[in-house]
């Protein structure tokens, strides 16, 4: 092993590497004393990576065209069917009931049974304690 010594000329190779420093650092390369080190490093790593690489090979190659086709296959027939039903309903004049008969909304439940009052009446001092005043203010 060469002795480390100062060299003011700092010899360098074609890429500007300081050969003196490179020689000093060389023992840090595990392959300095173990020539097969990097091959073992590589094969160990490739063995560990094999499951992930296999998983990636199994993944289908999805393109934008595939995504659009898949989307269209489900959505377009549904939209066509909905449009056909709507058109038939319009032609035949069917009453379209958006809400099932008998269902009650939350607002309706809150004001059910209350007499209709104007806001000035509801805010009247006498009625201030009444539960109706709160409902009247709200609705």
């Amino acid at each position, binding site marked *: 092993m060469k*002795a480390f010594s100062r060299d003011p000329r700092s010899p360098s190779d074609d890429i500007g590497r300081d050969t003196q*420093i490179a020689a000093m650092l060389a*023992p840090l390369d595990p392959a300095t004393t173990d020539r097969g080190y990097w091959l073992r490093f590589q094969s160990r790593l490739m063995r560990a990576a094999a499951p992930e690489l296999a998983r990636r090979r199994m993944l289908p190659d999805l393109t934008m065209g595939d995504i659009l086709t898949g989307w269209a296959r489900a959505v377009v027939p549904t939209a066509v069917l909905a449009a056909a039903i709507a058109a038939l309903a319009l032609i035949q004049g069917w009453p379209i009931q958006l809400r099932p008969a008998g269902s009650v909304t939350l607002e309706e439940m809150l004001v059910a049974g209350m007499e209709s009052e104007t806001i000035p009446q509801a805010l009247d001092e006498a009625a201030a304690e009444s539960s109706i005043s709160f409902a009247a203010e709200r609705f």
Partner: protein
Amino acid sequence: MSSSGPPTPNDGDLVRSARRGDDGAFGLLVQKYRRAAYAVAYSVTGSHEDAEDAAQESFLVALERLDECRSPERFAGWLMTIVRNRSRNLVRRESLREMDPVPLSASTRLPTPEREAELSELQAVLRGALDGLPEVQREIVLLHDLEGWKHREIADRLGLPSGTVRSHLHFARRALRDVLGADATVEEGGRSSS
């Protein structure tokens, strides 16, 4: 220590192929950057065993997250960021383990006695010298003077201006010469004297 051989496909192509599970492409990426990954990990951990673990783990993490690499052409820089982070995490874990009141059993990953005998003294001197440098300077001097990366490659891959890389390299070399040249004259046969 720089590798030579037939020209390999560019990183962008290799990354795209590896994303599809091409083990040949991933193997080439490993072959291309294994030494640099080790050097960066060593610059953070200062230990052969930890650097090896961090470099290996980083390649596996990179493979799992390959779809997150937005610029496949800049794979090396992205990989080195993973290596640096994994190495720092490893150091943090190690230091927490050292604080553990229950002593741990001796590591089973000690180098072979032969290797230990040959290199321990010299490596201790080198480690001491490198420890005196800031992390970024250690990384740059190892990538340039040990791995043979060019200034521009280091600048691109570490995301630093080329002038900054040169400046770090200059100070790192000067510091290494000061320590290794003056304090640790390593003689033939691995004996050292100061």
